[in-house]
């Protein structure tokens, strides 16, 4: 067993080294396939993370009459926190609301002036409710509209948010569908190119394969070195892809982070490096092995 394994490995290694130009071309093609696969994975992460970041900003704000005492608002807060759909319920006092408002309107002196003229804080205290899932907002709204404290509210601010959520859902679904279709297309093309390259490599050895069969070599003995070669191509291409993607992520992720704070693609990449490499290796080996296996069948019929 060990002897056969050693000979298979030796024969495949010799095949790679003695046909180094063909091996290099094959590794580069497998590398492109694995790179495409990795790129699609990182793109998918970026889209999902971006949408999640935008969704994190969505909430329901309920504004209370100014005469509602803080203790009553805290009771409502506790009540809402008890809802299974609620992720968090945050109290925003009148003073905090005013500070936010002033911060937002800092370039509009007329507003400042108007508030000064009023002499009191015209804004209401509020509760900001985040749901566990986007689909839960409607049921929280339904709960509020039937609640005992609904008469204590001035307004419920969700419509704007709701539109954003609905749009985000549509955008996410569209991007996901497009990304899956595009991924299937790209990976399909990459696998086809890869298959043809390996088929070409095996085609050049077809006479040898035939001769091996005719001198009595069983199929596994003939196929073994080519499958080993396919595996080595996959591993080499995966290592090359890991190096290239690491350099790219290292160079590009700070710029992406500056443009989209919280995207965290660099953090995701480095913390998942082991899994990414494992996926690359498995994908690379799979296409190397399957291509070699299928491409050889024709020549093993002798």
């Amino acid at each position, binding site marked *: 067993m060990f*002897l*056969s394994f050693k*000979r298979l490995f030796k024969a495949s290694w*010799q*095949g790679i080294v*003695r*046909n180094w130009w063909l091996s290099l071309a094959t590794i580069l093609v497998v590398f492109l396939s694995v790179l495409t696969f990795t790129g699609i994975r990182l793109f998918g992460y970026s889209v999902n993370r971006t949408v999640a970041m935008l969704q994190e900003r969505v909430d329901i704000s309920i504004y209370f009459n100014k005469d509602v005492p803080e203790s009553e608002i805290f009771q409502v807060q506790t009540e809402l926190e008890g809802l299974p759909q609620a992720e968090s319920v945050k109290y925003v006092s009148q003073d905090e609301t005013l500070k936010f408002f002033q911060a937002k309107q800092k370039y509009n002196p007329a507003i400042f002036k108007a508030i000064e003229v009023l002499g009191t804080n015209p804004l209401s205290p509020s509760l900001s409710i985040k749901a566990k899932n986007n689909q839960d907002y409607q049921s929280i709204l339904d709960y509020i509209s039937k609640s005992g404290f609904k008469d204590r509210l001035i307004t419920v601010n969700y419509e704007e948010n709701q539109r954003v959520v609905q749009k985000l859902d549509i955008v996410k679904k569209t991007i996901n569908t497009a990304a899956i279709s595009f991924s299937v297309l790209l990976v399909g093309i990459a696998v086809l190119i890869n298959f043809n390259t390996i088929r070409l490599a095996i085609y050049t050895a077809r*006479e*040898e394969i*035939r*001769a*091996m*069969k*005719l*001198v*009595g*070599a*069983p*199929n596994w*003995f003939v196929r073994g070195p080519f499958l080993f070669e396919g595996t080595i191509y996959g591993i080499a291409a995966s290592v090359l892809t890991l190096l290239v993607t690491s350099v790219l992520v290292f160079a590009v992720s700070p710029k992406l982070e500056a443009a989209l704070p919280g995207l965290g693609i660099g953090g995701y990449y480095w913390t998942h490096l082991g899994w990414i490499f494992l996926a690359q290796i498995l994908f690379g080996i799979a296409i190397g092995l399957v291509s070699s296996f299928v491409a050889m069948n024709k020549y093993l019929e*002798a």
Partner: protein
Amino acid sequence: MALIYFKDISKAYNNNLVLDDINFSVEAGEFVSLVGKSGVGKTTLLKFIIAEEQPSSGHVIFDDQDLGKLKGSQLSLVRRRIGTVFQDFKLFADRTVFENVAFPLEVLNQPDDIIKDHVGEVLKLVGLDSQKNQLPVCLSAGEKQRAAIARALIHGPDVIIADEPTGNLDPINTWDIIKLLLRINELGTAIILTTHNKDVVNKIGKRVISLENGKVIRDELNGQYII
């Protein structure tokens, strides 16, 4: 019992009958020359022995086994009892002479030290000892043919089939190869040789089977090339 028996063999390509009702046998240790014009079906008969092709009708029996009924591993086992010398050598281009000759022993899963000793002996026998580390591309036609014979011989087959082994060689190399085949035959291996070379066949002085128009027209123990 015959080593190889061609029983009622016919072969047609696109309704063109190439071999018609061929019947003959080859005994263990025999030297047989198959002669006839190009296209008469000599190579096809050899291909039947290694089951590279199947006859349209009839049976090829190797040591009591009908080759037409063997599949996969059974066929591989029979092929390991046959040494094949192809006219175009069919050496493995990316393996050295040593590795080419060692291949059948690797198929038989022989240990490295035995392979090393045995291949060394056979390469000495065929006169390629000094070229054992060369790739086939570096060899002359005669050397390639000797390497092919060494590969056919290395695992001690019951029979060596040699398809026009001297077809691409000059007269000196031709005689070297024929002498080598005769020597191998003396050691007990049956040889089936196809050739166009009248001088070679006549000087060998062994059994000659002559084919014409798809039929065996002559089968003589100390035969001559008469077509």
